[in-house]
């Protein structure tokens, strides 16, 4: 008698609901921090997309017995009225599923925050947003978890000044602010470093206000949507591109659909794949698709992936961010040229700050950022940590155990190789490790010459003083032995200024550099 198992389908929101721990919502403390982070990141993305130096306001209100209401307001691009329910109330629905750098790679963090609020308090959440057409749409929403669908409880329109764009999200959840507080403030501080053009105001449940003012109004260039690089392609991607193309033959298809692919290159690739350049891409057999993918991947003369879809912070802006939050004695920021791993373009920005207000912890303080998001957990598993440990810092005349020192590593990419859905640390890809190392070493070299100059200038001044002291001893002892006075003046005059060394008149060296 055959037995039969029962088979069930579950919705994506149900899946993530059942496995909320893997997205970082595994306990009340962590969830409190994650909610702030996910909503602030969406707000930052909205500001970036609006193309202006935006403002973000985050406010907590305690409702008793561990329940909090959190409100996040930004003056970013806004969400269209008709997209609001799905954008916030449906998992795997987002504006982020394009080949362009954005903060939430998985596109589900914001909805997870709302879902967490709902399952802990059963309260609906509110979204109010305007895209600048003179009114704002205000929704009260819930998520139908089993069906991954938003439920609109109430909706209204509010008049706002034309051109005003904003988004306000308000949700209630059960959490633990007291124990999450440290991480939240550290997150906001580091966010202020990496997005120095955004003004952030934070109000905690006790009414204390923390302001992270902007240090510049200049925005980084907005990332562009980009075509695929041939190395990043598999059969599935190729099929999707073919289904979307309007071209009629393989040469045009390849040169239109891919980066760094002229007609000449396309012909070479097709020759490699033994495919007719005139063939209609839609007519490729399964076997031919595979051959084409292999040819695209093994052709070794493509330029590196186009990085115009990436949006690094920029050396000047990052330096401003660091100076404003840490006030170091010395700082150097380097932006590495674009590179790629596994077909994904990336840019590494590295900074080194030294002395002054850098926190003295007895070790290098590592600030990690990915697509302008600070990474706060699991630093020791991160590729940047491993790179720093590898470097012999004594080469650069610094002793991290004694001198306060901070290293900043920002990676931007269309695809950050996170190791977990929690997005906390970056995998050890050799290409990325290499760029981080080169960047750090360039900063460290600048730091070394700063330190060496500082030391050299101090030295010349000291030299004469020391010489004089020793010749006094020599003179005294010689006089004692020989029984007549030996005057050291003649020799002192001679050796006070050796060739190639100069003493400045007042003997003061100028230690301020790079600031």
């Amino acid at each position, binding site marked *: 008698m055959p037995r039969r198992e029962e088979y069930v389908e579950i919705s994506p929101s149900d899946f993530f609901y059942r496995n909320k721990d893997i997205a970082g919502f595994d306990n009340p403390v962590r969830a409190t921090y994650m909610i702030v982070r996910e909503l602030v990141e969406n707000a930052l993305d909205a500001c970036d997309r609006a193309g202006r130096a935006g403002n973000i306001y985050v406010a907590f209100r305690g409702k008793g017995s561990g329940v909090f209401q959190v409100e996040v307001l930004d003056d970013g691009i806004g969400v269209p009225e008709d997209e609001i329910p799905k954008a916030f109330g449906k998992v795997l629905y987002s504006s982020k599923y394009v080949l362009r750098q954005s903060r939430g790679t998985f596109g589900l963090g914001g909805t997870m925050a709302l879902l967490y609020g709902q399952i802990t308090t059963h309260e609906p959440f509110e979204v109010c947003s305007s895209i600048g057409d003179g009114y704002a749409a205000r929704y009260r929403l819930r998520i139908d978890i089993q069906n991954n669908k938003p439920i609109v409880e109430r909706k209204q329109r509010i008049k706002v000044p034309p051109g005003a764009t904003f988004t306000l999200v308000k949700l209630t959840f059960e959490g633990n602010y007291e124990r999450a507080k440290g991480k939240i403030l550290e997150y906001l501080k580091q966010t202020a470093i990496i997005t120095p053009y955004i003004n952030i105001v934070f109000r905690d449940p006790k009414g204390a206000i923390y302001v992270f003012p902007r240090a510049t109004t200049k925005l980084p260039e907005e990332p562009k949507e980009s075509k695929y690089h041939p190395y990043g392609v598999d059969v599935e991607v190729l099929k999707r591109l073919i289904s979307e193309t309007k071209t009629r033959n393989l040469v045009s298809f390849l040169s239109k659909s891919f980066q760094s692919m002229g007609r000449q290159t396309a012909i070479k690739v097709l020759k490699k794949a033994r495919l007719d350049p005139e063939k209609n891409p839609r007519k490729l057999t399964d076997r031919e698709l595979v051959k084409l993918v292999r040819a695209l991947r093994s052709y070794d003369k493509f330029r590196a992936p186009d990085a115009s879809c990436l949006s690094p912070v920029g050396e000047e802006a990052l330096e401003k961010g660091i100076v404003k939050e840490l006030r170091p004695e010395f700082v150097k920021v380097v932006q590495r040229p674009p590179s790629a791993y596994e077909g994904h373009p990336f840019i590494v920005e590295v900074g080194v700050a030294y002395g002054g207000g850098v926190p003295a912890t007895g070790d290098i303080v590592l600030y990690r950022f990915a697509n302008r998001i600070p990474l706060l957990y699991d630093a020791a598993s991160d590729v940047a940590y491993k790179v720093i440990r590898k470097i012999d810092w004594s080469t650069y005349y610094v002793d991290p155990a004694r001198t306060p020192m901070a290293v900043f590593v920002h990676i931007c990419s269309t695809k950050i190789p996170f190791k977990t859905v929690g997005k906390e640390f970056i995998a050890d890809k050799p290409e990325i490790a290499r760029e981080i190392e080169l960047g750090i070493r360039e900063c460290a070299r600048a730091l070394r010459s700063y330190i060496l100059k500082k030391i050299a200038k101090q030295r010349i001044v000291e030299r004469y003083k020391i010489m004089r002291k020793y010749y006094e001893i*020599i003179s005294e002892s010689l006089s004692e*032995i020989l029984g007549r006075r030996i005057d050291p003046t003649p020799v002192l005059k001679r050796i006070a200024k050796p060739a190639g060394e100069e003493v400045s008149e007042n003997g003061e060296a100028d230690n301020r550099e790079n600031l």
Partner: protein
Amino acid sequence: MEKLTIEKIYEIAEKIGEMIERGEPPLLEYPPASTSNIEFSEHEGYKFAPKYWSKILGSHIKSVKTLAGVIFALERCLDHMKSGLTMTKRDFYYLHKVEKFKGTLFPSDQRETDTRIVLLELITGLSREMLSITSDPRGEVYGDITLVDKSGNTIKLNKVGEMGYAVPPNPEHIKFKEINVKAVLAVEKVGPAKNMIELKIPDEYNIAIAMLHGQPSRSMRRFLRMISDKGVPIAVLVDLSPWSIRIASTVIYNSIHSAHIPGLATPTAKFIGIHSSDVEEGGFFEKVSKVALEPLTEEDLKCAKDNLSIPSLMGKTWIRENKWFLEKKKKAELEIFKAMIRKSSELKDLYIRYLNMKFEEHLNLSLKE
């Protein structure tokens, strides 16, 4: 001796003084104690034969401290010599620990001034004892030898107590009056040496016994050389170990470390035992050597390996002995005599037999005559 030292100090002071007065950065040249300045021969042991010279230049910020340190030290040595006083290395260090040297010659620790002492030796070509800097002495000699030392007393070395005469830090002042021994037996360890004295071997067989207490002090080495210069054969009896062949070779050849000091080697001295052949089949200690040998420790083994690159251990005998350590990974100690006997009354005969055999073989001298 002392006159030479004082002249040397004046000479250096004059030279430096004149340069300073001429407005010329003073310069001191000296042969560094590097291996290229040291020669070795079986006949003379280590010898200082300068080929390369180093400079202490008064115009260099790093050298000027050394220069000042050297000149100051010479002045203090001269002063001590004039008062007939010695100083220890620690004394020398304390001479620098004074208010006015803060920021200049005030030493961070004693290593700094110890290094300066070696430099003084190299610059003057004299031993530090001659410059009045002595270290803790170590070692006694028992036997029918009569001498006068710095104390001015006439001393008979078998009449100064059961331990014998404590060799002073600077034996330079000693004058020998009468030597009635046919040889001096230098023994690494006090225990066996003391037993020989207790058994009246030096008295009955007319030899002197020197107790080295391990690696011999410079004063003991100098003393042995001085007595050897009087024509007395010297025999060296040490453990069978990688360290002990170093001890024996230091008595005979001096060491690289103090190669620049003349008069510390006794090249006519003979290494009489314990040899590896004594514990091997047919050897003197054959019957107990299976159990009484000790295994080499890690450090012993490292020492044996390091011995391979010591110039004074390149001779046939030394290489043979050292190879034995590396192969057998064993050592034997002078206490092995005690493992040979069931009754202590057998000990005297055992010593005599061993020493007689060794004296005949290496000194061409019969103990029993």
